């Protein structure tokens, strides 16, 4: 395993830690997107370009997008509930 691969391995570990440590869901969706990209890079370095592409579209695009959409949905419902209480 080359030095570059070990470096990316460590980067995956650090960014995974970062995702877990992030408390705000909005910031977390960005962090998980970055983590997805780093993981894709790791797959690519281990000669799995097909898996890397799937990882990019699922981990770095689709998953954060779904989190963001769900968050916006929750926020708009929260806002409505507050209006109702008034």
């Amino acid at each position: 395993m080359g030095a570059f691969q070990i470096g990316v391995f460590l980067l995956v570990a650090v960014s995974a830690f970062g995702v877990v440590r992030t408390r705000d869901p909005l910031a977390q969706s960005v962090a998980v997107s970055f983590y997805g990209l780093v993981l894709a890079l790791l797959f690519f370095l281990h000669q799995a370009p097909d898996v890397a592409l799937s990882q990019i579209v699922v981990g770095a695009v689709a998953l954060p997008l779904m989190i963001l959409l769900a968050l916006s949905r929750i926020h708009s419902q929260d806002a409505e509930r507050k209006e109702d209480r008034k």
Partner: protein
Amino acid sequence: MRTALLAIGCAGLLALFLWGMTGLPPFGSYPGPYGDLLNSFAASERKATDVVSAVNFDYRAFDTLGEEFILFVSVAGAALLLRKIDEEKKDSKEDSESEDREPGRAPPPTSDATRAFGVALVGLTVVFGLYMISHGQTTPGGGFQGGVILATAPLSVYLSADARTFQRIAPRGLVEGAESLAAAAYVLFGLAAVVLGGEFLRNVTPLGEEEKMGSSGNIFWLNLAVGIEVASGFVLLRSVFIEETLQRRLREESK
């Protein structure tokens, strides 16, 4: 105290992990015969230079059928769950005719940077997505990856243009129809082989020339079906989520 316990645990895990890593076979070693066999005859037998696609859409196409329907069912489930909330809200809105936000408080307008970047991205993502879907058999990628890329084009439109343009390029009925038809097409390809006297999902289309677009028979056509299914599935999922905002933007624009 808790941190100290955690540190001891982590140190132990690290030691065991590193110990386990030393016993791993070297990178790239492969014991089984199956992958080597496929590597040696997928190109000549199926005209596919990307053996991963050949496995996914030919030799193990039945597994991919399951994967495709996982997505189909999830999109249908999300649409079903969120639609119910929509209907309830629509009723209450018709009663009171009131908006669910303060009057005179408009959302901030889209910035010029977002507009310009979004418009520039639309063409790129459409071309790249179509390339990815149509060249699954020759290079890494395929219907799943290309479909998601293709689905980001309407998102760019939604973010950079007005809601009516989004509605025009991705009308709900068309997207729903495309998703269902593409999902059905996969099964129909499989059944076509049965009708012609082969096994389910055996190759039924001409294999064509190696490294050319449209080669590898079923692998190309199934990638196309999956690409359309995934793209419209994601667009549908997104429009279900943003339905409310979309309707509000449409009302505002028509004023």
